[in-house]
């Protein structure tokens, strides 16, 4: 069984979690060109290596961030967005 550490609920079965994809910065829509907005919508960090991504613990609806290696599938750490001020 694969486990993931929710920052609130601790280690839980991976089935209880939902991936929301890599963290992305939201540009100011007023100051962004169409091309840049397209880039924001459709681009995602897809590198081999450690990426930062959103996850949700579904039963408790906790959104949090994880640093995960996309080659080895190893989770480096998980933390709450409050620590960095990010929003999903």
């Amino acid at each position, binding site marked *: 069984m*694969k486990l993931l550490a929710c920052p609130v609920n601790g280690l839980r079965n*991976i*089935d209880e979690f*939902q*991936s929301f*994809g*890599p963290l992305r910065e939201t540009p100011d829509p007023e100051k962004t060109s*169409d*091309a840049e907005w*397209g*880039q924001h*919508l*459709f*681009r*995602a960090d*897809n*590198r*081999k290596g450690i*990426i930062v*991504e959103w996850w949700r613990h579904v039963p408790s609806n906790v959104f949090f961030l994880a640093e*995960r290696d*996309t*080659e*080895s*599938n190893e989770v480096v750490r998980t933390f709450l967005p409050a620590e960095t001020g990010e929003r999903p």
Partner: protein
Amino acid sequence: MPFSLLKYGFSRTYPARYDIPPTPDLKRHYDVVIIGGGGHGLACAHYLSKYHGITDVAVLEKGYLAGGNTARNTTTIRSNYITPEGISFYKEGVELYERMSQELDFNVMFSQRGQLTLAHTEATLRSFKARAAMGSHLGTRTEVVDQKEVEKLSPLLNMDYGGPLEILGGLWHADGGTARHDAVAWGYAAQASRRGVEIHQRTEVTAFEISGGRVQKIATDRGTIACGQAMIATGGMNYEMALKAGIELPIRCYPLQAMVTQPLKPWLDTLVSSVSLHTYLVQSSRGEVVIGGGSDPYQLYSTRSTLDMKEHLAAGAVHLFPFLQNVRLLRQWAGITDMTPDYSPIMGASPLANLWLDCGWGTWGFKATPVAGKRMAETIAGGRVPDILKPFSLERFRSFRLLNEMGATAASH
């Protein structure tokens, strides 16, 4: 008997035939460099050399020939998509498969046995009606069939009458089929190399030298080469490869898992696929039942199989054909699918003038092998993108003209 066989083996009358010559040394310049020695790259090399007179071509392959997604896909060939652009494109692909063995003088074991996609809900049935209407309009054999016809097409199916997964009907696609994936790649490779195309196995592209908006040189682990034009067709590695040329493609990579059972006598003479169960089955010519395809629910570059995904596939297969419960699994694997946001491929121009893209093949690449090769060869030879490829441009993500292909896959929709 052994001596006569030996005599035959050394005979000058019947010399051993090498389909693909050993990897030569790299030259300093090629007119066209194709990065990726899978089905798509080899098909493009074949069409360039046979129909456009371009033979100064190098195909660079990091591993061995056709050992990536060409070897890992589940060999479904079909054109029952939903967008007119998608259907027209894949229809040409199916037609090229129909003639491929003659074209390549190589038996690719194309078996046009039809594909049956099952609906367990009214909503799926409605989407099938849309797909059938669009498919018939564009000249493919695609129709909605009722329960009786489903039973007739695949008598061993568990219809689950009155159950939660009752089969309400299906989408019958008589043009659907399957072919031997190795034969497809080897057929193209043999043809191309006979015309002078060089196939460089175990040759990894490490960097691009770019100036003036063009790729000038391509660095590999076996030396640096200059090129007139280049094409990226590296399957699951497309994102990483394009990034080396400074292009960030809108691609996310997920492993797609599949497996085969032990060989059985022939019993399944169509391709069967269930949208709700995310499971599809086809019996190979060796008798093995190929079962696909579960996508891992998060980005990953690892091709390790996972137990939960295999359990899910096995559960789907056993639900559709309960007698499979006693059958053993023989092999399991995963391939890295380069998924685009709209489930359509990215073909044609890149931001660099002489670099062409054949990317974003996600879970729908094998069926497009001949048509992508043919049309990309036309693009490279003529320096312009043919109309049939225009809807698939990278530019569509800047101009918001996405091509939402909900008929793309049974795996992840």
